[in-house]
């Protein structure tokens, strides 16, 4: 199996889909020069500037026009550059794309992949670092993906392009270069979590880059005799409740970790859903960013970060403070 980076894995998926289906095309600023994170490098040479299309600095039009083109029968992949800039196209995504099929009584479809590179990336500061995945899970009509590995970025990109619903596709900026094996025959279904590690003491639920951080924490915990099960949700809508429920039934303990702000983050949805359904041995926990902003200075930025030691510590505490 070839080893490739998270960026290249998605690029391979895009290229394969574009070869198979002439109606698939990409649009965004600077794509003809490979895009700002080089996740499109080489594609314009193969597919030409109509299908790897540059765009003016017009996020609202990029999103709105891609939607129009989707209704006219194409399958656009929309590049938003930074998830933060996608906020310039919120009406288009939330009021138009997510609602059109329903409002028009099923007459229209919006098969689109909306790529929004997200998350903290050293010293990018408050306007280039946000993780807003929970917003999109709250919007009916949208599918929401947060791949954490090259394999998933390949397989989920393939699934997203094939999907007839609009898919908000959140790649994490910090792991563009991370490498891993990619099996191009491996398909991932939305709503199926990845079991990144099995364990019987505590269930760690996460997604995106923080899922990788959880795996790291689980290794530390293993040295202390605590076997953590790590569930990487991969897609947040739909999300794999069955996998989480099964795991928590087994371990009796739930810890959810993510990079986004804790308050009204998707971790709240996971903890609340489990708490509503499953009695646990210990009170469940969430780790996310404080409700503060992401600063430029690295030590200040770090105050907003959920780290492997924090995750390991929280899991240990859950093991120790067992109710009698």
């Amino acid at each position, binding site marked *: 199996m070839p080893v490739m980076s998270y960026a290249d894995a998605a690029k391979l998926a895009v290229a394969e889909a574009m070869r198979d289906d002439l*109606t698939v*095309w990409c649009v965004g600023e600077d794509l003809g020069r490979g895009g700002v994170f080089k996740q499109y490098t080489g594609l314009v040479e193969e597919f030409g500037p*109509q*299908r790897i*299309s540059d765009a*003016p600095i*017009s996020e*609202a*039009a990029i*999103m*709105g*026009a*891609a*939607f*129009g*083109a*989707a*209704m*006219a*029968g*194409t399958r656009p992949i929309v590049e938003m550059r930074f998830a933060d800039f996608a906020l310039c196209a919120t*009406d*288009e995504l939330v*009021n*138009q794309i997510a609602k*059109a*099929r*329903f*409002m*028009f*009584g*099923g*007459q*229209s479809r919006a098969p689109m992949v909306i790529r929004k590179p997200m998350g903290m990336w050293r010293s990018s500061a408050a306007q280039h670092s946000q993780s807003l995945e929970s917003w999109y899970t709250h919007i*009916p*009509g*949208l*599918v929401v993906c947060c791949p954490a590995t090259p394999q998933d970025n390949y397989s989920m990109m393939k699934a997203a392009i094939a*999907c*007839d*619903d609009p898919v908000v596709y959140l790649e994490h900026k910090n792991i563009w270069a991370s490498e891993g094996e990619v099996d191009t025959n491996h398909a991932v279904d*939305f*709503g199926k979590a990845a079991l990144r590690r099995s364990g019987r003491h505590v269930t760690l639920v996460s997604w995106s880059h923080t899922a990788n951080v959880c795996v790291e924490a689980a290794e530390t915990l293993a040295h202390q005799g605590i076997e953590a099960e790590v569930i990487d949700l991969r897609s947040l*809508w*739909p999300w794999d409740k069955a996998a989480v429920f099964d795991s928590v039934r087994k371990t009796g303990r739930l810890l959810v970790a993510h990079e986004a702000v804790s308050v009204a983050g998707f971790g709240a949805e996971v903890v609340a859903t489990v708490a509503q359904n499953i009695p646990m041995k210990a009170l469940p926990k969430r780790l996310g960013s404080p409700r503060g902003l992401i600063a430029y200075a690295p030590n200040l930025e770090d105050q907003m970060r959920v780290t492997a030691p924090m995750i390991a510590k929280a899991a240990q505490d859950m093991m120790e403070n067992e109710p009698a």
Partner: protein
Amino acid sequence: MSLSNFDREAGLARLRMMERIRAFEETARSAAIDEELVLGAIHLSIGQEAVATGVIETLRRDDYILSTHRGHGHTLAKGAQADAMMKELLGREGGCCGGKGGSMHIADFGVRMLGANGVVGANITIAAGAAHGIKLLGGDQIVVCFFGDGASNRGPFLEGVNWAGVFNLPILFVCEDNQYSASTLTSDMTSGNIADRARALGLRTTEADGNDVTTLAATAAEITARIRETGTPEFLMAKTYRISGHTYFDPATYRPEGEAERMQATTCPIARQREALVAAGVPSAELDALAKEAHAEMDRALDAARSAPWPADETAFADVQDIGSPLQEAF
């Protein structure tokens, strides 16, 4: 309009369409006011019928249009059935959007009417994109995007018109300038002039009397033929006037005393077209019959809508999305 080459048949067809639009809206309004059958807000285009009629008659069935919150006229003119539209306004089964959209989201993809829109100006980028899609797929259709004067103050106006220019797309933007943005005089909130904005964005721009259906249709025919030929976007400013209030329940007291009456008396496109036809020798009885017919059609549409059932409750959960649909995940 010169009488010499006045085409009687075309003139009658245009009057018929305008009468149908007027009758549809008058029927809907009374259904709303007298019977409380229409539950949400409806925006009437009374006084503006010539724009929809004159522009859309120049389109093919497979051309696309996109509309605004004031979309009944465009939808009828593109060929949608009054029945299904009236059912939609009453929120009934058989409505063109299954009762889910109502007036503000009226749409008929069968005739390539890609929807009214509740967000002012939002259709401009979407329409540019539909034209982008046509170009990518190598089609020979064109797109017409209607919007109001007030919409020209929203960012998507600039972004969408620029997009069409940059990618050289087969689209006609039609600004229906009825002078008002809800209760505000658009000119009070607009710096410069809308047609100049379109020109500055690189588009060939035509200004027209939007209440003279005959010359408007001729102008539109030239423009849409040119767009189909060249694939290049253009812009049409159609000056008109909304005789009714902003919504059906708006008394429009913000307008200067007598303005609406004076405008109705002087610019109503239906009255003007009737005069033209009478001047061309059509007996006025024939014109009255045509209006009566239009009203009868809309009465029948209302009757059908009135007796149609509500949509089945379960349809509330359908057509949201395939993956993670509330049909599977209700709570």
